[in-house]
């Protein structure tokens, strides 16, 4: 199973407890629709796209997404989240071929 490069960014960089922060989740993924033809071989490239993204904050799923092939290559998902104590934000993403990956970031509120 291929390791996917994924990145979670929290803005602003420094935040207090209770503050609403922006969470950018980026992942390197081809997002093949299953309708595109390979120009060299003339064969249809099989579909392979992310179909589920789950944001898990300290063991509680705060946001889940169903995704289809109309989302761009190397997708970016922006959500907002209320900081509620120190902990861990884990993003689990599954693609249509059954590939499961996850990425996480530590949540450290200031003060």
């Amino acid at each position: 199973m291929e390791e996917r490069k994924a990145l979670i960014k929290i803005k602003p960089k420094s935040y207090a407890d209770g503050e609403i922060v922006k969470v950018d989740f980026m992942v390197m993924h081809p997002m093949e629709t299953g309708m595109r033809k390979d120009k060299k071989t003339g064969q249809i490239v099989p579909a392979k796209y992310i179909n589920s993204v789950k944001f898990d904050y300290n063991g509680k799923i705060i946001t889940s997404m169903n995704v289809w092939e109309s989302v761009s290559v190397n997708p970016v998902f922006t959500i907002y989240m209320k900081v509620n104590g120190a902990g861990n934000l884990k993003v689990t993403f599954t693609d249509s071929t059954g590939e499961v990956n996850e990425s996480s970031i530590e949540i450290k509120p200031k003060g």
Partner: protein
Amino acid sequence: MQRRDFIKTLGAAAVIGAVIPTMSFAADAPKGPNAFSYKQALDTITGGKTPVKSDKIHLKVPEIAENGAVVPVTVEVDSPMTESDYVKAIYIFATKNNNVRCVAMHLTPANGKAILGTRVKLGGTQDVAALVEMSDGSFLVNSQSVKVTIGGCG
């Protein structure tokens, strides 16, 4: 007998000729393995309810997209996001893509703000629609047209 057969085939040909054009022009029926039309998607989600067009949904999409492969879309919904009144789900549709569904996001009050930002592929000039499900079970909708210079599918 021969003459009769000839007339029969002639009649059949006329019928086929009349049917085929209507079939090929039948709306913009989506094709492909994962095809899903806008109406079909709306009906599946709302269960037959008619969504209300609302200004509470702020849909940020460029009016002219040079490259249809990457079109940034941001949906922001005015909502206090409390336990009793929050946005349950945000759906983004590209109304003329083969599969109109882009993202379905399920929120909780822990989000604080009802905002979804992503980038979608658009096959051509079309409307991008956002459907929002509120915690009281009502549906809101808003859409904006996007001119695409170069299509992003295929």
